[in-house]
């Protein structure tokens, strides 16, 4: 087995993210993922190329989309001899696909690969009512007319109502927003700081678009050239006028539609490879994947909040790499909700929490906030669940390349009480 090597981030491509039932209302996950792969292939001259692997995924997925990523590859300009598979880990999907591809490259099992993710809230799967589904399955298995008749006796008028996917945790019944509101209250995250973070996200994203930062990261799709959720003129004052939508039963509800991410449609893809493969194909290396860590918490019966797993993942990642939280030039903390980012930062600064819950002698400490989400994040771009990881990896790799050095930290919280984190460093 060859020595372990660091996978190179060569570049990325995504389509602008659209608000649900907006510009991409008629597009399926397969359409968006195919378009995104084609855009990446066009950008890096990969038409007809056989890559080591494409790993992709979607969170809201139709049953017909079995092997979605492979189907997207088959419909793309990539060689049909490029293998592909699906992966799913809620909002961690996109970053976890990058971990999967990078690890195979690191081990020398593949020389190149694409990590991708896509999600649509507009073309979401609506399933048969479960009672009706059971009747139909029984009917399908019935071998005699009598058995068929017996199966049909299970039909009820109410079964006409389909199952619609809900943005709720299966075991708690609470939506992500309600979970986040509980965490926000626990960490006493104020309304004002949430609105400021949201306004900064819009401001930073707008400025980045204006200076052309996304010119080689985003390909227009279905008439959209920028993320539809972006409000360049957003301000903390304007956001302060919005009414709370989550945690309304709490004493001081703080979470609004403005400091929470909206339901979004979109797709992203990242091209990774070995340094040798990049050189052979005359492709740039923007950054290298240093390491990654996934963690999970017991958000059901334990004390931890649904979206707090990255709080646990990052200290492990730092320890293994001999780094402190301050050793980074850029922090990309996914803005599921503004309060999630702020609660995460507060937890790392809290001596009692870090001692008791993280088992550390000293808190990780504060970060330089001017290095946080410097070209905007999910509050401004929107958050098509599985597409967020790829958006962030490509964005951070480019930031590091522009910076001509340095190191960046990615932290993405996910439903199910999970979190995926990664360290990138600029290519020498």
């Amino acid at each position, binding site marked *: 087995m060859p020595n372990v090597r660091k996978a190179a981030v060569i570049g990325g491509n995504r389509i602008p993210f659209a608000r649900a039932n907006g510009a991409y209302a008629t597009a399926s996950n397969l359409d968006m993922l195919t378009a995104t792969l084609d855009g990446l292939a066009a950008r890096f001259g990969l038409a007809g190329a056989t890559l080591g692997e494409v790993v992709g995924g979607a969170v809201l997925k139709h049953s017909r989309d079995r092997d979605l990523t492979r189907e997207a590859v088959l419909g793309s300009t990539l060689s049909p001899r490029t293998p592909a598979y699906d992966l799913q880990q809620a909002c961690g999907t996109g970053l976890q696909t990058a971990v999967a591809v990078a690890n195979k490259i690191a081990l020398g099992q593949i020389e190149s690969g694409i990590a991708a993710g896509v999600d649509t809230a507009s073309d979401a799967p609506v399933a048969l009512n479960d009672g009706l589904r059971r009747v139909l399955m029984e009917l399908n298995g019935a071998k005699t007319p009598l058995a068929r008749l017996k199966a049909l006796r299970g039909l009820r008028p109410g079964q006409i109502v389909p199952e619609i996917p809900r943005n709720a945790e299966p075991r708690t019944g609470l939506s992500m927003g309600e979970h986040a509101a509980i965490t926000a209250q626990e960490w006493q995250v104020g309304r004002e700081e949430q609105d400021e973070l949201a306004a900064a996200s819009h401001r930073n994203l707008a400025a980045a678009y204006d200076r052309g930062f996304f010119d080689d990261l985003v390909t227009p799709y279905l*008439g959209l050239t920028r993320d539809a959720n972006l409000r360049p003129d957003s301000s903390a004052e304007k956001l302060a006028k919005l009414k709370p939508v989550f945690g309304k039963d709490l004493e001081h509800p703080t979470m609004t539609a403005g400091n929470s991410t909206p339901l979004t449609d979109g797709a992203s893809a990242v091209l990774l490879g070995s340094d040798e493969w990049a050189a052979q194909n005359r492709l740039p290396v923007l950054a290298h994947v240093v390491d990654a860590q996934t963690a999970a918490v017991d958000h059901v019966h334990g004390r931890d909040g649904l979206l707090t797993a990255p709080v646990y993942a990052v200290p492990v990642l730092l320890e293994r790499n001999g780094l402190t939280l301050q050793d980074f030039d850029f922090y990309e903390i996914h803005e599921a909700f503004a309060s999630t980012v702020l609660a995460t930062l507060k937890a790392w600064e809290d001596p009692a929490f870090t001692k008791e819950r993280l088992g550390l002698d000293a808190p990780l400490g504060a970060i330089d906030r001017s290095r946080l989400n410097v070209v905007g994040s999910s509050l401004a771009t929107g958050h098509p669940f599985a597409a967020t990881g790829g958006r962030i990896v490509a964005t951070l790799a480019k930031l590091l390349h522009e910076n001509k050095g340095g190191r960046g930290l990615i932290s993405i919280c996910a439903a199910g009480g999970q979190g995926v984190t990664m360290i990138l460093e600029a290519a020498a």
Partner: protein
Amino acid sequence: MSLAGLYVKAAVGAVGPRSRELPSTELMRSVPVDRAHLAAYARVCGFAVGDVLPLTYPHVLAFPLQVELMASRAFPLPLPGLVHVRNTITARRRIDAAEELDVRVHAERLRAHPKGAQVDLVAEIAAGGEPVWHGRSTYLARGASAPDSDKFEPPLPSGIEDGPAVATWLVDAGTGRRYAAVSGDVNPIHLHPLTAKAFGFPRAIAHGMWTAAHALAALQGRTADAATYDVAFAKPLLLPSIVELRTRPVGDGWHLDVRSRKAQHLTATLS
């Protein structure tokens, strides 16, 4: 007038005196691409929903003008009963849905055929004045007469006689209605068994251009932006049907073949 209205008008006017020569009329129109319509077309034919127009899509932009021209009394062949026998599309480059397109349609080459008379409806599409797409639809009017032509008739694309199918399609009974809804081709032979019977078909038949588009969609990601898609329609594809697609790479292009156990429906080259 709606396309359905034009069909009715043409059906009513089918009896009676007609011109013996092709009108010199050229119909022109600006055709903005409606993205919702493009998406609906892509769904029905099997293309991915995106910004690039499928090679066959401009045909449905030009089709209403074709019908308008053919439904007029000045047109020598009666529209009801015209059979689409061949279609040749040449795209010079990819066309984006955001481009402003102008369509021009005219008829040419009215000529004798062993079974009647043939005519070509030619559509030219320009983007900002630049010619980008050319379509030639050949229709046959059985039993009609026309002068012989000494012009060279390009040979029909040959079928793929051997080898396994690359795909089996279950073409359901609603295919004709769905394609009619996105193409505007509401010829009754495609809509329902009863209306098809009135025109002598045992069941409704699929639109040739749907079959051509669906076959092309199977090659998504493997075709050049600038290409010629030459399609010959053989026996009608009765609905519903189970048919097989065969493809074979030839040079930089492809041969395509769609047939059922009993009949050949389509042969095509993409080059």
